[in-house]
């Protein structure tokens, strides 16, 4: 009896010891876990296909930003998962779900295309994950369909052509011929332009998305002989358009202005053909601030060519995450959101202000295409068209 009791007691002590040990190990692991807290970022861009060069530049910039931060974001160990959306909204949606649900990332960032952003914004923001856009800025996201968990580190689509329209209006241009691809961003760009340009629209031509030969449109343009021409032809289309414009000798017929069509992605393929073409942009490699100088110099040293605005915005996206974690001391969505919403984010464009719809309020510059001291073709800021320019949709955004 006594012996049996002793046995039961022994058993109880053993169980208690095991439980205590387990709790101890658990607490130890928990403390350790908190000590080396890891922030996980899912970075979505287009790495394959014709637009792969854009994604490559963004990936380079993200990696450079991490290098500059010693592999940490806001002091926490950082892990970036790159995913390739293949420029397809359906693929992007699957990847977004994977990042949020199975990879359990703390922040999703990147995204080049407006249609891709429209496809992924809901699944990401609704799962209480921050989404920080590095490029696309479709108007619904800045207005009625805005979400408090979305931040843009680029611009709203209309703003850059608005600056072009403002510049051409101020320069006394009387008449313009417009050309853009036939899709939503193309139409947004031209309507943004027309918001500030009040002269005559000599022609408005929508080309096929992905068109490679513009000779037919250029023949018509020559016949119309407009005073000026303003185009939006991003990526490879910009290379084709500018090449064929020069080859057709249209400089003698009309003066060419552009948005998003001549930049560090297309310049290596265009070289001298792009010299003297004016455009507007919120960033330029020659913007004079410490962060930008370091970014451009190190990017050139590492990759042997100028970064594009895509790369600069990707770099700024990582800086924003770093800033949010460093200031709030946490990777918690609410706390990071509160920091970013206040603005004053250190970027390659200086301290970036944030509007009430989480889109930046920033300067837009007139850029010329010139040769640098080494004879490499690049862009240079000529003047500031808009200072602290806000987009026109923020009033419709209610979180």
């Amino acid at each position, binding site marked *: 009896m006594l012996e049996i009791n002793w046995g039961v007691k022994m058993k109880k002590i053993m169980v208690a010891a095991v439980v205590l040990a387990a709790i101890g190990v658990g607490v130890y692991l928990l403390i350790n876990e908190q000590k080396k807290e890891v922030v996980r970022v899912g970075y979505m861009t287009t790495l394959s296909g014709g637009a792969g060069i854009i994604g490559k530049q963004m990936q380079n910039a993200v990696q450079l930003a991490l290098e500059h931060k010693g592999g940490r974001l806001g002091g926490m160990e950082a892990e970036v998962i790159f995913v390739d959306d293949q420029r397809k909204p359906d693929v992007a949606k699957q990847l977004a779900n994977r990042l949020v649900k199975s990879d359990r990332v703390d922040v999703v960032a990147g995204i080049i295309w407006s249609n891709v952003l429209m496809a992924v914004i809901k699944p990401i923001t609704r799962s209480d994950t921050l989404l920080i856009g590095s490029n696309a800025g479709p108007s619904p996201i800045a207005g009625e369909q805005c979400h408090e968990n979305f931040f843009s580190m680029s611009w709203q689509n209309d703003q850059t052509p608005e600056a072009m329209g403002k510049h051409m209006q101020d320069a006394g241009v009387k008449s313009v011929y417009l050309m853009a691809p036939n899709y939503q961003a193309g139409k947004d760009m031209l309507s943004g332009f027309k918001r500030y340009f009040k002269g005559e629209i000599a022609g408005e031509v929508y080309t096929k998305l992905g068109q490679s030969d513009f000779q037919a449109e250029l023949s018509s343009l020559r016949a119309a002989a407009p005073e000026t021409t303003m185009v939006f032809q991003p990526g*490879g289309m910009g290379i084709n358009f500018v*090449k064929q414009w020069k*080859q*057709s000798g249209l400089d003698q017929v009309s003066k060419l202005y552009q948005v998003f069509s001549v930049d560090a992605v297309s310049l290596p*393929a265009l*070289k001298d053909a792009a010299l003297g073409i004016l455009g507007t942009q919120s960033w330029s490699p020659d913007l004079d601030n410490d962060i930008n100088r370091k970014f451009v110099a190190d990017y050139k040293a590492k990759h042997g060519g100028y970064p594009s605005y895509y790369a600069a915005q990707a770099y700024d996206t990582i800086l924003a995450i770093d800033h949010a974690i460093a200031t709030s001391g946490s990777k918690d969505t609410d706390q990071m959101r509160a920091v970013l919403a206040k603005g004053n984010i250190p970027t390659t464009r200086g301290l970036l202000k944030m509007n009430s719809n989480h889109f930046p309020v920033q300067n837009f510059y007139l850029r010329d295409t010139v040769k640098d001291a080494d004879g490499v073709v690049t862009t240079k800021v000529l003047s500031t068209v808009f200072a602290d320019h806000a987009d026109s949709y923020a009033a419709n955004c209610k979180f």
Partner: protein
Amino acid sequence: MTSTLILEQTFNGLQAGVTLFLVAAGLTLILGIMDFVFLAHGAQVMIGAYFAAAITAASDNFYLGILLAIPLTFASGYVLEFLVIRHLYRRDHMEQVLATFGLILFFNELIRIGFGPAALYSDLPPSLSGFVEILPDTPYPAYRLGVIGVGFACALAIHLFVSRTRIGAMVRAGANNSEMTAALGVNIRILFRLIFAAGACFAGVAGMLLGPLTAVQPGMGEPLLILSLVVIIIGGIGSVRGAFIAAIIVGLVDTLGRVFLPGLLRLVFDQATADGAGPALASMLVYILMAVVLIFRPTGLFPAKG
């Protein structure tokens, strides 16, 4: 004013048409004679353009680039047939689609590894960067006139080769009935390999000619592939003559439709409707044309199989 514009646009249409023909000529023979569904034909365009652009960049001589790129593209087509394609003839069409779709991805990645994802720099040779007056006061780029000339010359050469030579007779016989041709003692394997390499070579020439006009980048040939499939369906599968006529028609319809349709719609509808529907309808025109041809001539305009 308008008539000179129509003339200029007709030249643009011809130039687009002969480029399409160069791609479609090989494709129609591969599909018609070898009964092989080859989706990676657009990759041959890209390979030709990269060979020419790389050699031009290294030698600083556009003509040398083209001259060396032609045998290189022929050789790459020959090797591709020997290594991959010949093992697929006996497979059904669905498997050929899958395998050759895989080849598209393979070649795009190969080019990306070799040359990087950025577009290559390529420009017109100085000797062809001027203008020719096709009518007084109607300057037309000399290079594009040259493209039209080369395209017509290639079409004539293919026509003479197919209709006048002994190998051409074998090709025609193969298009009509390949088993009977083989039974008559023609080495159909070698014939297939030569046809495939020649087809790759003509597509490569299209790429070389397009190089100075457009961005030389991975995947540059794929938009051409879709249009050239339309061409061979309209022209009749296996018929080089059909491919030529259909390519010119498609080039003209696409170009003239794109340019003049929005204006014509504006005469009937209000501005907003015309601006919305014009470009959309223009990009559908060639497919509508294909549908109409298929309704009245289900085997195309010039069917090769009797």
